[in-house]
């Protein structure tokens, strides 16, 4: 049966082209893979290969023809035993046959956008409910006995408990084993779990992050420690492209249960390359969970949840907080769910939203403000993705003012996202603009006086509160 040879699309954007030259003539035998013609696109001249075998019966578009539409018949291919008369009436009227299959080669990017309005995005917080939501439930029952411990001890305890609970959990990173952890988070783990599960790596972040991702695909639950998150920049491709996107790209078949953890943000006097807060960067990526604990209880409860979570989790710790002590509940299995903020201090005059080390500025400012007669409500977000925006919005509806506090840079900050969400969900409740307090828009300087200036200060928080309360 004679078939039409159609003008091919040779690039994702090609709609028409020039048939520059025929390399076969009528009557020539054609084998699959033979080059039939040269076709000029807007970008280049390309060779057009035969797919089917037969004899070139008739050339429908002579060489030199410009503006030949994609999918237009350009020649007729005869099957074995057919003669040229078959070419007069090709059996398959190609243009109409393929018309229904989309003669525009590239699907419109707008296609499917009608789906955007309807379903609630699985990974973004639900729209804020109209009715006031139930008050935030506490992390553990009232009256539970607590123990004082540092953030460092809490992280270690969480990893230890989860490694005892699940044999597939292991820890890898630089100096996590014999050195006992560059910041002593993994102290003692090698002794308890041995070198099979506490693995010292060479200093190759890109490589071991990728190996961690592969191990997660292969059925394990890796905890990958970055000595600091600054070094995770070398591993960014595996965190984003390999870990975060695979569940989606595989149509739900293959997830990546892995925890990437380590200190993030400024330490003290370590200068620009070792002092950066990556919260806003990671928070942008669908497929990731991003958490940033403040207290030891946050650290323990969130770490246990992170290790059990079936998704890649970015766990942003802070070197300065490692040594701070907090109360942690004495429970067999204390976890904190992702996407649940904590109201650390109730108040009615202004809402302060922060996370991680930013909480230290927020809470100190709130104490000082209370002495001056201003009651601030302080929200500890804890998870940045998913983010508990309903708790923030409810608070803003009560206080009518909001200030966000973080150490990261201003442009594209966590606070700028929160501010935009407040405007969308609680615009009519605002009595003042939302202020996003951040670190200064500069690389971190080394000099002690300049470093202090580059970071956020309690005084700046107090000033901002005075601005929005018009005092």
């Amino acid at each position, binding site marked *: 049966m004679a078939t039409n040879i159609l003008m091919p*699309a040779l690039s994702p954007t090609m709609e028409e082209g020039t048939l520059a030259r025929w390399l076969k003539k009528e009557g020539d035998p054609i084998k699959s893979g033979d080059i039939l013609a040269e076709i000029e696109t807007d970008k280049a001249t*390309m060779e057009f290969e035969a797919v089917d075998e037969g004899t070139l019966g008739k050339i429908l578009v002579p060489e030199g023809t410009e503006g030949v539409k994609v*999918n237009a018949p350009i020649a007729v291919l005869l099957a074995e035993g057919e003669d040229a008369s078959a070419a007069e009436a090709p059996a398959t009227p190609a243009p109409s046959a393929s018309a229904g299959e989309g003669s525009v080669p590239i699907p419109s990017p707008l296609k499917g956008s009608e789906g955007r309005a309807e379903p609630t995005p699985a990974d973004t917080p639900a729209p804020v409910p109209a009715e006031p939501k139930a008050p935030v439930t506490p992390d553990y029952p009232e009256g539970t006995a607590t123990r004082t411990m540092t953030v460092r001890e809490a992280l270690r305890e969480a990893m230890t408990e989860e490694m005892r609970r699940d044999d597939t959990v292991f820890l890898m990173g630089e100096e996590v084993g014999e050195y006992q952890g560059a910041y002593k988070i993994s102290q003692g783990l090698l002794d308890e779990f041995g070198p099979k599960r506490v693995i010292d790596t060479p200093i190759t972040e890109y490589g071991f992050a990728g*190996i961690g991702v592969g191990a997660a695909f292969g059925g394990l639950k890796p905890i990958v420690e970055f000595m600091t998150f600054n070094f995770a920049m070398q591993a960014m491709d595996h965190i984003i492209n390999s870990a975060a996107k695979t569940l989606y790209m595989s149509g739900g078949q*293959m997830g990546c249960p892995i925890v990437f953890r380590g200190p993030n943000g400024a330490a003290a006097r370590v200068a620009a390359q070792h002092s950066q807060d990556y919260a806003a960067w990671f928070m942008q990526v669908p497929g990731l969970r991003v958490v940033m604990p403040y207290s030891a209880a946050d650290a323990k409860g969130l770490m246990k949840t992170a290790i059990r979570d079936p998704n890649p989790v970015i766990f942003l710790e802070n070197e300065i907080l490692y040594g701070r002590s907090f109360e942690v509940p004495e429970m067999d299995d204390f976890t904190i769910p992702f996407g649940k903020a904590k109201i650390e201090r109730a108040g009615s005059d202004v809402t302060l939203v922060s996370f991680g080390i930013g909480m230290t500025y927020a809470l100190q400012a709130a104490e000082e403000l209370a002495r001056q007669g201003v009651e601030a409500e302080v929200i500890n977000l804890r998870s940045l993705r998913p983010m508990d925006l309903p708790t923030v919005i409810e608070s803003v509806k009560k206080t009518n003012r909001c200030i966000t506090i973080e150490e990261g840079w201003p442009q594209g900050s966590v606070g700028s996202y929160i501010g935009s969400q407040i405007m969308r969900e609680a615009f009519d409740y605002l009595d003042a603009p939302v202020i996003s307090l951040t670190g200064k828009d500069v690389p971190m300087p080394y000099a002690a006086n300049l470093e202090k200036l580059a970071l956020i200060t309690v005084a700046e928080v107090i000033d901002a509160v005075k601005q929005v309360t018009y005092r």
Partner: protein
Amino acid sequence: MATAQAAQTAAPAPDSAAIPNVSREELLTYYREMLLIRRFEEKAGQLYGMGLIGGFCHLYIGQEAVVVGLEAAAEEGDKRVTSYRDHGHMLACGMDAKGVMAELTGRIGGYSKGKGGSMHMFSKERHFYGGHGIVAAQVPIGAGLAFADKYLDNGRVTFTYFGDGAANQGQVYETYNMAQLWSLPVVFVIENNQYAMGTSVKRSTMSRTYWERGAAYGIAGEEVDGMDVLAVKAAGQRAVEHCRAGNGPYILEVKTYRYRGHSMSDPAKYRTREEVQKMKDERDPIEHVRSILLTGNHATEDDLKAIDREIKDIVNEAAEFSKESPEPDVSELWTDIVA
């Protein structure tokens, strides 16, 4: 070590007396599997030309003997991971042609429900771990799969495929270092088709025997004629044996050749038409097996025609399925983001 220049120069006419001990059934299987990949890829190219496949589409035509030979050396449960030139790997490990083609057309019947496309497909059932679009990213991932196998002590081996282009990426050497350090059961398969997109090996490195780079890390390896499926299989068996015996990773540099462009929009100005034609005429992996079958009287022309028809039917059925399967429901936009 196999002959170093084999893939570069014309082989002598196949001599049935020189064929290693291989059964008729095996030969027919290799013929069938390689032909399936070739016809599938030709059809994919055709559907791309019709606008049914969009974006990037990297065809495997010419390299069929690599995956078919190595799959012949694999056992059930062994894993594989590769780059974006992945259609052949999926067909060779037993994934369904319909599901692969429907993914190429972006339909719900595809392996990733249409959300991955040509470069991103996975099958837990067939132990195929992608389909990765960032050059060389699959190399540490493959070592990680092997890490999991070793940790779980399950005796499995992972085939990690990458090209001569990826072989210059730094993460490959980070991975070599750790794979040997931790004695991971991973076969690194360098599919050297001699062009990293449009840049020939000669224009990208002075260190052109890629497998020898493993020596810096203590990793054993060899070069293989990638146009000879029997040579590939034999090398694959040596590699797998090495890994399963607990000796750590192994490198196979498989010299092969891609007939088509890097992707569908490749003007092919970096090599001559004569060079491509010479490979097709003298070193075609499918013709190689075909000729062994015919000259050794292991099969008749009619036997092979019957296989050709069988393959054509499978491919046509896959193409039909890929056109009829609907696009994913718009609600799929929001699914599978987090588990």
